[in-house]
């Protein structure tokens, strides 16, 4: 059984005695990555600050390694948990190594002089985060991604059992986001750290966390494994998304369709339609998409962007009835785009749409998504 490192029970917390976080309970065990998600202002930062003892507990309790946080001193807390915060420190004339070494604070003496052992710990942490080669570079002059890694090294120098991170990946590029989260995963696995982090990148929360806690208006709206949270339309509900849709399967965001009658018809399939769908959407041309097997990779985008989608059951050939339906729509369109270069066994019936359009003198454009 993994030890529970951090536990909040029926926690109320906030600023100046006013509760922002209400009745929140959560747990993080060693080796576990817990992601906090939820809209801006839901209380994620407030909750995190309370967990590390920076904001007072108004009611309920927070415990670290089984001890009530109110009963343990600042120094003891600092040895149990370390943080990477949204604050962006800009220390004058400090090198990256000095920033990392600052994490040895709870272990050094009255004057904060570093022993050999402290320097070695800092070097080890920096090697782990891949920032050791920056050790004598001024902290202010390295990139955002490197800075975040140095701050993570600093946190690791505290040798914590709980790592708390507030939106650690928000300002990082895609490579650094991945590197950072992969490193957190391996820290959880190999060093048995409990990790609680808030994330705005839902797709990453889904892929890198063991548990997801959804906060809404200061309370836990839902909590569970990523597979439970990222299902159906829950995320849209959580964030109150009105101007688009969120596809939980792929973590992709699509804007809202305009709700007008389609002006053009697009024959897609097998991924050939996606780029045209987007182009048409951007140009504000309402379109219909068809005829797609329900499991086609064009489907999610078509469903999000196309005013009408004609589909047929997965793994089966398109039924003639579906074609007739599509033809009634095509009749009202000004143009037909065909993204397919040839048709296969299952979507052979799409050929009839093409023939019909040619017979009715509806202009047909062959569109290739691959730029030649």
């Amino acid at each position, binding site marked *: 059984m993994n030890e529970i490192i951090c536990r909040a029970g029926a926690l109320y917390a906030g600023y100046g005695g006013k509760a922002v976080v209400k009745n929140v309970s959560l747990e993080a065990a060693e080796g576990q990555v817990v992601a906090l998600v939820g809209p801006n202002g839901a209380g994620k930062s407030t909750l995190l600050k309370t967990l590390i003892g920076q904001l007072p507990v108004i009611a309920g309790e927070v415990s670290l390694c089984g001890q009530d946080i109110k009963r343990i001193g600042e120094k003891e807390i600092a040895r149990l948990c370390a943080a990477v915060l949204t604050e962006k420190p800009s*220390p004058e004339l*400090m090198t990256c190594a000095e920033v990392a070494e600052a994490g040895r604070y709870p272990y050094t003496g009255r004057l904060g002089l570093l022993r050999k052992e402290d320097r070695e710990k800092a070097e080890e942490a920096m090697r782990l985060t891949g920032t050791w080669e920056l050790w004598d570079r001024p902290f202010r002059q390295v990139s955002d991604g490197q800075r975040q890694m140095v701050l993570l090294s600093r946190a690791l120098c505290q040798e914590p059992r709980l790592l708390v991170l507030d939106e650690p990946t928000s300002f990082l590029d895609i490579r650094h986001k991945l590197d950072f989260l992969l490193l957190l995963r391996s820290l959880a696995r190999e060093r048995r750290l409990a990790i609680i982090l808030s994330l705005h990148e839902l797709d990453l929360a889904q892929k890198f966390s063991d548990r997801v806690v959804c906060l809404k208006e200061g309370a836990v709206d839902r909590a569970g494994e990523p597979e439970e949270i990222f299902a159906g339309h829950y995320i849209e509900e959580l964030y109150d998304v009105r101007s688009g849709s969120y596809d939980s399967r792929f973590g992709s965001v699509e804007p809202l369709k305009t709700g007008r009658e389609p002006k053009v018809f697009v024959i897609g399939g097998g991924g050939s339609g996606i780029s045209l769908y987007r182009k048409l959407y951007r140009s504000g041309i309402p379109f219909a998409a068809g005829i797609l097997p329900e499991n086609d990779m064009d489907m999610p985008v078509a469903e999000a962007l196309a005013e009408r989608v004609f589909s047929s059951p997965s793994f089966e050939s398109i039924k003639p009835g579906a074609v007739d339906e599509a033809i009634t729509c095509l009749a009202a369109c000004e143009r037909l785009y065909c993204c397919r270069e040839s048709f296969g066994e299952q979507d052979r019936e799409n050929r009839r749409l093409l023939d019909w359009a040619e017979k009715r003198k509806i202009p047909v454009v062959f569109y290739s998504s691959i730029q030649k």
Partner: protein
Amino acid sequence: MNRKKRLRCAAGFGSLILLLGLFLLLNMMIGSTHLAWHEIVQAFKAEGDILNRSILFAIRMPRLLAAALLGGALAVSGFLLQTFFANPIAGPFVLGISSSAKLVVAMTMIFCLGHRIPISSFVLIGAAFAGAMLCMGAILLASARLRSMSLLIVCGVMIGYICTAITDIMVTFADDSNIVNLHNWSLGSFSSMDMEDVATAALVILPALAIAFLLAKPMGAYQLGEAYARSMGVAIRRFRVELILVSSLLSAVVTSYAGPISFVGIAVPHLVKQLFGTAKPLIMVPACFLGGAVFCLGCDLIARTAFAPADISISTVTAVFGVPVVIAMLLKRGKSRE
């Protein structure tokens, strides 16, 4: 390399100590009566001309010790305030702390002179400390409301002007023969101190410096920002109170003896940082003290000798040398931000 850094620190301290020795010597030698090297050596051996001895020990010594001690205290006070406000142009003069300490001291002096109450050094230090804390309180209240650091500095400058104006009015209307003294003091000068004053000042300043040195560890953490400092285990409330008390006490002592002295608190920490290539408090506290001592010894030498026999106020000289440093620093910061 780490060794390179250590070497640089050693070189920094070495050069500061050398400069300190040089300026101490120059301050002993130069004046309306020039004392040669051998005359100074003789005086220290209690030999030679009795007049030379009294010039050296009764006039020059207290003044140069005062300049060194108070200058050092001022620079450390400036460094503490810069750390506290995370702003390199914070300082006792800019934030109005010196001026408000001056105001309360002037009020106390006028009151005591008017009622023929003898004034002890500790009363003046106490008055200056009260004034410094009043201003600090106002600044802290303002800082809770003003998110912008530059507005806070403007606030401090305003407080400084108000305090100076009120002091001027009081000095103008106070009718006492001592007003000449008061006037000189309110412009800033090391001239009025005797050996006893120096000893009293040292009695307050040295323990305050020791506390400042012991605050170096949390200060280092605080340089990463308040939230990070807390997450590393700094008892933030206590630390902030200690920092404010020590920095206010240091600038109060200086003001009560030498009046407000401008720009030392900003220029010296900046120069020292550049010299040492680090802002580590553990190094900065002693280095700023040495640097402040050197800076004020140099400036006082000029104040005494440039227009001899007339003294110019020390603040005039520190401004002449300090302001270009501050402007250079601001320009450099502006550039690096782009």
